[in-house]
């Protein structure tokens, strides 16, 4: 099978050469702008919410991200989020809005199989890796810092 491996490698290189490339600068600029604007929207919401008496900046940050999540889910429902994301690329899926879009689009997609067996089962089919890795790695981080604190003698 060695000659096949060589043939495949040669074909792979040729395919790489002939396949059109994504327009690098164009897509980078779009990702930059989409991501930047999403963050600015979050910042505006955070600063406005922070003006409410009794709301700390940290609370305002939480409420701002909740607002972004709800807005993104609503846009997904209306069918406009994916149209924006086709241009935004990473600028649309890296912010928390992309997380919300992935979750709600899966929920909508599998609604046809029922609320229990479709929506509820498949809601995490795209964002599952984020939640699972987040829980596992943050737990590891917590344990690690606990051990460090023990050794350091701060607790």
């Amino acid at each position, binding site marked *: 099978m060695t000659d096949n491996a060589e043939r495949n490698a040669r074909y792979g290189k040729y395919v790489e050469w002939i396949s059109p490339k994504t327009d690098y600068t164009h897509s980078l600029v779009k990702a930059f702008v989409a991501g930047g604007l*999403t963050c600015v929207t979050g910042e505006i919401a*955070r600063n406005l919410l922070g003006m409410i008496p009794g709301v700390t900046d940290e609370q305002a940050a939480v409420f701002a991200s909740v607002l972004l999540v709800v807005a993104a889910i609503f846009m*997904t429902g209306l069918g406009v989020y994916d149209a924006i994301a086709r241009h935004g690329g990473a600028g649309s899926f890296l912010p928390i809005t992309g997380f919300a879009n992935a979750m709600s689009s899966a929920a*909508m997609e599998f609604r046809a199989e029922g609320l229990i067996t479709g*929506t509820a089962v498949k809601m995490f089919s795209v964002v599952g*890796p*984020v939640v699972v890795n987040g829980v596992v790695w*943050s737990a590891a981080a917590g344990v690690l810092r*606990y051990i460090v604190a023990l050794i350091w003698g701060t607790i």
Partner: protein
Amino acid sequence: MILPDTWWGWLLDYVIVFASGGLLCALAQILIIRTRLTPARILVLFLIAGIIMQTLGIYEPLSAVLRSGIAVPITGFGASLAKGAIETALSDGPLGAFAGGLIQTAYGVGIAVAASYVVSVVFKPKSK
């Protein structure tokens, strides 16, 4: 806010948010084009980056300057998970590490789940 409370201080604040958020996303876009990593893998990568930054204690000073520019991308989600896990572990013992992350991020995740549920009842996906 660390910048002076003047109009240009405000503006600069937003420029920093825009630039840092944009740069993070552009970095993810480069990864997509260059390495053909799937979006899911890149999300996990940035999430873990946020967790590591929080664990090493470099996230807090960064987010004081970049604010939403680093908090709105998934790195912010990772950082809050780690923040909750670390704080609860230090106050309640090592088992707290497994609860703290979820407690800290419960607002966002809880509302995302509920809103997704409602949206799936109200709207139907469209063929493109």
